[in-house]
C-alpha cells in the first residue's frame, strides 16, 4: 500500500544507454526539493541513447519504475522524461515583431506573439521542436533585456535557442513509457536537465560549459552571460572507449568494461609504461598480460577525439572567442582518472568535475555524476510545478491541457 503523500511528488526518468534511472522527490514548502530516492535498472538494448529493442527496453523501464515505487513508497503516475539522441539538433533563431511607426508599450501578448512565431519556424522534414529557450530580447535601439515588459519600442526582437529532434525516434521513447500507463508531464533535453543539477545561477552568469560524458552519447550545453547560447549531442560515448578496448584486446565487451572501470585512465606517464595488467580471456585458455600503457593509449585516443569534436563545434560559434568561463564534466566518464587534465589540454579553459547542487533528503546519490540528469529533471519539474501552483486550479488545468497536446504532438 502506497502512502498518501502530503506534498506534490516529482518524478524524473532517464532512459540511458547503460541504465534506466528514476528519481523521486517531494516538492516541499517554499519550493524545496526533498529527495526520496533513485532507482536504477540496467538498460537492455539501448544504443547511443536510443531504443534498439522496444520490448527489452520497456522491461528495463518497468523494472526501474517498480523499484522506485518500492524504494520510495510512491505510486508513480507521471514523470518528467529526459530526451536525448544523436539526432538532436540545436540552433539559434531570431524573430521580430513591429510595434507600429510610433512604437508601443511592450506587454505579455507581444512576448506570446514572438514565442508563437518562433514555434512556427519550418524545421527539416520529420523533425520536431523540443525546446524553445529564450536567449534575450532586444529593442529597436539595440538594448538587450531579459524582461522588456513596460518598455517602449518600435520593434521587438527575440532570440531563441531551439532544440529539435527526429519525431519518429522520439516517439519510440515516449511510447515506451506511455504504454506502461505512465503519463509524461514534460520532456527535457538530458543535458539541459544535467545543467539544472550542477550549475548555480552565478556559474551560469560567469560562463559555463557542461559536458556529460554518458555511456552512449556525449552531450554539452553552453551558458554565456547567464543564458543558453549553444548545445549539442555527439553519438559517441564511453561505450566507444569500452568497445575500442574490447576490439584491441580481443576480449568480450563486459570484460573490457570491467578493465575500463577499474584500471581506466587517460594519464600517460612513466609508471604506466612499466605497469602490466593480468586479464583472463574467455577465448584463451590462460590469463595474459596486457601493458597498462596500451589501455591508456586506446582510451585516450577516443576521449581526445570526443573533446576535439566538441571544440571544433564550439570554435564555430560566435561566443567562443569571448568565452571565459569554466568547463564542468559530468556523467560516468568524468570518473575516469585524468579526464580533467585531458579536457583542459584540449579546450584551454579551466576544467572542473561537476558537483550536484544540494538536495534535502536522501544524500547518497549526490556524488554520482551519472545520476545528475535525473536529479536535474527534478529541478526542471519544480519550475513547472511551482508555476502551476502559483496559477492555482486554472493553471493546473492549463498545464494538463498543454501536456495532453504535447503528448499528441509526439504520438501523431
Amino acid at each position, binding site marked *: 500500500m502506497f502512502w498518501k503523500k502530503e506534498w506534490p511528488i516529482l518524478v524524473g526518468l532517464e532512459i540511458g544507454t547503460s541504465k534506466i534511472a528514476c528519481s523521486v522527490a517531494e516538492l516541499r514548502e517554499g519550493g524545496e526539493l526533498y529527495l526520496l530516492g533513485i532507482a536504477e535498472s540496467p538498460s537492455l538494448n539501448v*544504443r*547511443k541513447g536510443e531504443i534498439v529493442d522496444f520490448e527489452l527496453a520497456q522491461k528495463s523501464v518497468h523494472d526501474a519504475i517498480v523499484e522506485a515505487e518500492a524504494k520510495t513508497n510512491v505510486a508513480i503516475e507521471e514523470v518528467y522524461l529526459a530526451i536525448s539522441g544523436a539526432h538532436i539538433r540545436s540552433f539559434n533563431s531570431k524573430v521580430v515583431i513591429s510595434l507600429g511607426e510610433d512604437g508601443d508599450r511592450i506587454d505579455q501578448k507581444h512576448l506570446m506573439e514572438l514565442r508563437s512565431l518562433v514555434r512556427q519556424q519550418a524545421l527539416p522534414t520529420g523533425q520536431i521542436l523540443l525546446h524553445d529557450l529564450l536567449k534575450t530580447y532586444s529593442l529597436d535601439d539595440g538594448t538587450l533585456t531579459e524582461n522588456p515588459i513596460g518598455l517602449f519600442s518600435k520593434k521587438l526582437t527575440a532570440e531563441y535557442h531551439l532544440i529539435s529532434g527526429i519525431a519518429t525516434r522520439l516517439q519510440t521513447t515516449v511510447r515506451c513509457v506511455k504504454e506502461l500507463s505512465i503519463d509524461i508531464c514534460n520532456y527535457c533535453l538530458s543535458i539541459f536537465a544535467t545543467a539544472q543539477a550542477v550549475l548555480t545561477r552565478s556559474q551560469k552568469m560567469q560562463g559555463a560549459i557542461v559536458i556529460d560524458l554518458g555511456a552512449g552519447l556525449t552531450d554539452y550545453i553552453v551558458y554565456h552571460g547567464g543564458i543558453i547560447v549553444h548545445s549539442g549531442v555527439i553519438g559517441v560515448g564511453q561505450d566507444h572507449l569500452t568497445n*575500442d578496448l574490447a576490439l*584491441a584486446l580481443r576480449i568480450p565487451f563486459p570484460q573490457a568494461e570491467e578493465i575500463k572501470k577499474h584500471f581506466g585512465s587517460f594519464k600517460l606517464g612513466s609508471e604506466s609504461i612499466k605497469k602490466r595488467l593480468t586479464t583472463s580471456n574467455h577465448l584463451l585458455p590462460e590469463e595474459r598480460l596486457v601493458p597498462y600503457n596500451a589501455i591508456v593509449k586506446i582510451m585516450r585516443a577516443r576521449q581526445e577525439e570526443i573533446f576535439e569534436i566538441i571544440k571544433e563545434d564550439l570554435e564555430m560559434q560566435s561566443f567562443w572567442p569571448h568565452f571565459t568561463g569554466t568547463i564542468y564534466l559530468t556523467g560516468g566518464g568524468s570518473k575516469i582518472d585524468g579526464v580533467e587534465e585531458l579536457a583542459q589540454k584540449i579546450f584551454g579553459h579551466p576544467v572542473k568535475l561537476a558537483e550536484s547542487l544540494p538536495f534535502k533528503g536522501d544524500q547518497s546519490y549526490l556524488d554520482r555524476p551519472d545520476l545528475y540528469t535525473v536529479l536535474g529533471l527534478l529541478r526542471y519539474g519544480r519550475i513547472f510545478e511551482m508555476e502551476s501552483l502559483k496559477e492555482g486550479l486554472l493553471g493546473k488545468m492549463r498545464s494538463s491541457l498543454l501536456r495532453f497536446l504535447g503528448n499528441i504532438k509526439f504520438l501523431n
Partner: protein
Amino acid sequence: MTKNVVVGIGKAGINLLDEWILAEEPSGLFYALDADFSSVEGSLAERRILLGKEATKGLGTCGDLELASKIFEEEEPRIEQILEECEHLLVLSGLGGAMGSAGLQFFSRKASERIKTLSSIAFLPFHSEAFSRQDTARKTVQELLEFPHQFIFFSNEKAKGVFGPADDPLRVYRNLNKKVSSIISCWYHLTQAATEEAPFDSTNFPSLLFVEDFYSFSLRGVEKLPDKIQPYLQPAKDVGLEQNRKVAWVCFFLSPTKTEEDLRSLFKAEESLFDRFYLSIIRENRENMDAREEGFVLIGNAAGEKFIETEIEKQLERTDTILADNKSSTQPDDGLQKDSISTGIFTKGYKTVHKGVNLDLPAFLRKGISIKI
C-alpha cells in the same frame, strides 16, 4: 613413391585445398593438417591429421605461434611420412595465424633437409585483421627467405574489390580461393606429367612472388589480354627498388592441336615488359579440350630480401595510413566508410558519422596509433 602431395595447413590452407578438390576432383594424396578439430574434420582431403591433440584438445592454437611450432616439432614422426612418400610438395597455408605460419616454416625446413622440391601458396592477412597477425605474417615471410623453395604470396587485401566487393571480405576470400585453385591445378599437372626425360623444373615457378594481379582467360580472350595486363604494370614500376623485379607467369591448359609457339607468339609483346616471364603449358589428353583451353596470368613483384621486407612493412604501414587518411579520402556517396574493421557492439543500430568518418570504428586504428599488446 608418389610424385606429388598437396598439403593444406591451418584453416586457410584447408579451405583452399577443399576448394580445389571440389573444383577438380583430383586423384592423389592430399593432406589436411590443423590443431582445430572442426576444420580438419570438415575437410574434403582424403587424409586428415589433427595435430596437437594433447596440447589443445582439438580446439586450435588460438593464434599462439610458439605453441604451433612446438606442436609441429612434437608431431614430426607423424608428419615425416608425408615428406618421405613424395617427390614434390605443395603447401597451402595462410600467414598470420599460428598453424599455417608455423607449418609452412616447418615443411620448408624439412624439405630442405631432404632435398625435396617445395612450392607454396600462402595468403597474407587482410589489413583489418589484428596487428599481431600482420606481425606474424611478416616474421614468417622473413624466415622463409632462407629456404630455396618457391613461394607465392597472395595479399587478401589486394583481392578486395577485385574478387568481390571491398566491404565483403568473406566473398573476396571465397572467390580468391576459387581463382587460386587454378594455380594448384597447374602445379599438380606439371608435377604429374614430369618424367625422367622431362623432369619437373621447380624453377619454372616464380619464387617469393607477391602477387599484384591475377587474371584468368580463355584462348578466345587472349587477343585482348595485352590491354588488360598493361594497367597492372604500373604498381610494380612504382615500387622503385633496384632489387624489385616485375614478374609475369602465364599458365595455360593447351589442346594438342595447338603448339607452344602459337601461345608464345601471343605474349611476345608482353615478355619484354617484365623482368621475368614464365610460361607454363599443360597439355591434357581429355576429349573435350576446347572447353579446357584456358589459363591464367599472374603478375607480381619478386625480389631479394630488402624488397620483401619493404613490401611487408608497406602492408602494415598501409593499415595505418588507410585508416588515418579516412578523413581526407573521398568517401562513397552515403558518406560511410566501407571497411571491414569490426565496429563491435555498434554493428547494430545507427552509425555515428562525423565529416564522412565512421566514429564507431576504433579511434586508435583510425588515428594510426600503434598499440603493442
